[in-house]
């Protein structure tokens, strides 16, 4: 018998601090699998952000830098410009990327910065106790939208891939999800493609991974996955929002 599924080497053999059913663990593994399959662990530098995934510097088996809240794309830019031959990725949540780090994200994309952003969107601030995020759905109850997000006063959930699709510099933008096995496999393929694009020097790549937060959605993990596959996917359609490779390769 041969092993058909095992822990990727790029994921350190340590316990993850995440809550039961938190999908960060799945996404960590997918990133690690992509790194392993491309054989790039020794040439990769990851950037951890602030939020639940802050400790990702303990989990990925490559060199890591931990960035201030929202600043990961700027930190990654600094690394990439210093070491253009290295593979540089950020791992960021939705509060980090789509609120405090919006400027860093948009401009890294606009510059076509040759980095890969893994954007985990679960619609809440988890680390600080379940506050409303820019991506929280309308009507969703959080600690800071206790009566449900009221779009009249609290605004609308932000669709990041659609926003970034307007930038010339973005080479690959995809929205994926981890609510079921098929979607998880698609997410993995998108992550691997993003890293491949970086290796090919094509420019900025971002894979949004719609994710579940059972704890702050106040749902059992299986129910959280159902909500993810339902109303969350309804608002955030899956798909490839930009693929410069496909565009140029066709020509």
């Amino acid at each position: 018998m041969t092993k058909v599924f095992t822990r990727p080497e790029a994921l350190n053999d340590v316990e993850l601090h995440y809550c039961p059913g938190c999908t960060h663990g799945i996404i960590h593994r997918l990133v690690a699998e992509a790194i392993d399959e491309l054989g790039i662990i020794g040439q990769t530098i990851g950037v951890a952000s602030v939020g639940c995934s802050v400790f990702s510097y303990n989990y990925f088996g490559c060199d890591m830098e931990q960035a201030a809240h929202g600043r990961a794309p700027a930190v990654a830019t600094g690394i990439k410009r210093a070491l253009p031959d290295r593979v540089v990725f950020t791992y960021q949540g939705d509060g980090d990327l789509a609120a405090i780090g919006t400027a860093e994200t948009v401009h890294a994309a606009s510059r076509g910065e040759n980095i890969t952003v893994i954007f985990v969107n679960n619609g809440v601030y988890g680390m600080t106790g379940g506050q409303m995020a820019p991506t929280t759905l309308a009507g969703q109850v959080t600690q800071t939208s206790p009566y449900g997000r009221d779009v009249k006063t609290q605004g609308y959930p932000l669709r990041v891939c659609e926003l970034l699709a307007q930038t010339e510099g973005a080479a690959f933008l995809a929205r994926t999800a981890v609510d079921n096995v098929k979607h998880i496999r698609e997410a993995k393929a998108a992550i691997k493609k993003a890293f491949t694009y970086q290796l090919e020097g094509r420019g900025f790549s971002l894979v949004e991974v719609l994710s579940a937060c059972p704890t702050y959605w106040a749902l059992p993990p299986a129910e959280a996955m159902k909500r993810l596959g339902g109303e969350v996917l309804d608002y955030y359609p899956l798909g490839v929002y930009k693929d410069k490779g496909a565009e140029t390769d066709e020509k």
Partner: protein
Amino acid sequence: MAKVTFREDRCKGCELCTTVCPKHIVQMAKDRLNKKGFHPAEVVKQEECIGCAFCATICPDTVIEVEK
């Protein structure tokens, strides 16, 4: 012939693996608790396992190894 191995002490009892098994052979071990205090997931009819790795794919804690 396939085999799944659960690293029980890493299991957080989220039950996601039990929701994706096409053979319905992954269950929570209600008769015991692991080191963390969770009922861990286990496979009840190993011989029926087809090695699809769905359970391992959705497991957030990389608890499951699959051999074929």
